């Protein structure tokens, strides 16, 4: 599988509704995950939906949002390839869909996104910590 073939596969899958994929060609396996999907809309620049993280808003608290891990893996604030690092300082203002960190599981890197414009209250995990599915990662308000 060469880079051209990989580009073609990704281009086709980008137009589908597939979130996770695994393609095998001649014994070479390509796995991937689309963390951002554009919902069908008259204006495709709107309504982007973060799929990499789930966010819950406990009913007991009116202004706290807990961002949970979408899968098990290892948490990192630094992208393993680009080395871009998210600041996890409490009190920082976040914009919607801002990357807070990544969960690495095997060859899959999943970004953790802020579900809305908010303030980062607390990071609940540490760099390189093993994270379980649905484990609380961040507290936002």
């Amino acid at each position, binding site marked *: 599988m060469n880079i051209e073939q990989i580009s073609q596969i990704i281009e086709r899958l980008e137009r589908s509704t597939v979130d996770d994929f695994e393609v095998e060609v001649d014994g070479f396996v390509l796995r991937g995950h689309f963390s951002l999907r554009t919902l069908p809309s008259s204006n495709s620049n709107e309504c982007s939906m973060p799929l990499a993280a789930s966010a819950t808003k406990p009913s007991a608290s009116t202004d706290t949002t807990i961002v949970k891990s979408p899968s*098990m*893996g290892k948490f990192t604030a630094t992208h393993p390839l680009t080395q871009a690092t998210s600041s996890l300082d409490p009190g920082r203002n976040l914009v919607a869909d801002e990357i807070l960190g990544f969960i690495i599981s095997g060859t899959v890197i999943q970004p953790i996104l802020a579900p809305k414009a908010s303030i980062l209250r607390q990071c609940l995990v540490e760099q390189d910590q093993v994270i379980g*599915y*649905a484990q609380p990662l961040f507290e936002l308000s």
Partner: protein
Amino acid sequence: MFDSVLIANRGEIALRVVRACRALGLTSIAIHSEADSETRAVSVADRSLCIGPAAAAKSYLSIGHVLSAAKLMQAQSIHPGYGFLSENADFAEAVENAGLTFIGPPSHVIRLMGDKVSAKQAMQAAGVPCVVGSDGALSGDAEEARAIARSIGYPVIVKAAGGGGGRGMRVVHSAADLVDAIALTREEAARAFGNPSLYIEKFLQHPRHVEIQVLADAHGNAVWLGARDCSLQRRNQKLLEESPAIGIPPEEIRKLGEQCARACREIGYRGAGTFEFLYEDGHFAFIEMNTRVQVEHPVTEMVTGIDIVREQIEIARGKPLSFTQSDVAPHGHAIECRINAEDPHSFVPSPGKVTRWIVPGGPGIRVESHMHDGAIVSPHYDSLVAKLIAHGKTREEALARMRAALSEFEVEGIHTTIALHRALLEEPGVIQGGFDIHHLERCLAEGLSPKEMA
């Protein structure tokens, strides 16, 4: 030799394995679904990790998720428990290929015994008695199938090679129904097991279900640990098991046990396993082998004093069995009642929050359960909430202890089958013993009613 065990299961068996790890000084790692985050095995294990949502397909049945968890937690071995992936040869092979130890037989042996046609052929070659039937899988030729059934004699049973545990089979009483039955079963087998192969056997009408527990190590040692009678069943699901199997000459059991141990050596078996037989008119007939630890293993542990899960783990660590066949000296009688979270009248599952959980005790009583006050019985998994085991010097003493234990057992918040067991333990056929696999269904049809406590 590994010193950490990832437990790819839940409920009481996960807790049982955690306890065995603790006894051996090994690190236990409980993996669990989101629905099981608060369960007992997760809280008492040395480490734990949530691997997915409640749906078993995305947690306990996901080979990828289990292996990812093993890598993340740096586990060196995987104990599959029973159910879920425990008899999945692809899973065992994936564990082996990942460089981890699968606590169970080699994957090729699971594959051999998972296909009922190849399993039967292997057992015939090892001299284990089998039911009269087709010589291998059916070819698809209707006339050939009719000839085989005619030579066996009706009624016959058409079985799926990939089936087991009572699934994928159809009884045929006359030649007129045979071809349709084969077509239907083949279609169901292809859909349910991914394997359309079928075979035919003589249908035994009033058999008992008797099984032999075995343990085999990687050094060529294989032993049998007596027989269990698991004939009290509803829709092929066991409700009560006991050991020894009464009314069968011990010499016959010994002969069968030795044949099973020899078969283990011949197929290269390793770990704990069970050979299941039907017993009718003084003859045993092999039905299948379970290549894992079974729900009812405590019955054998109580009469032999051998910790089967501990031995299973030690075998996987490469150690030889800690005892020989001559050391196996069963004593007394043990009975196990499976307590399910089900309505005892309708058998409808009864998930919910347990608001009261008081277990019985006293001499000869053992309870294996992951339940406690406030525990949640999840609607996502099987309904087994406890195994109540009673041991006595005699069967009568074991029955008496079980009756007392069942009267002490208090559960609120969910329905359980405790009241059904109370009634069964007073039923004349159960008290006498030696009943066939249809006994419970007959009792229910005749109006046996669960016995609620005042």
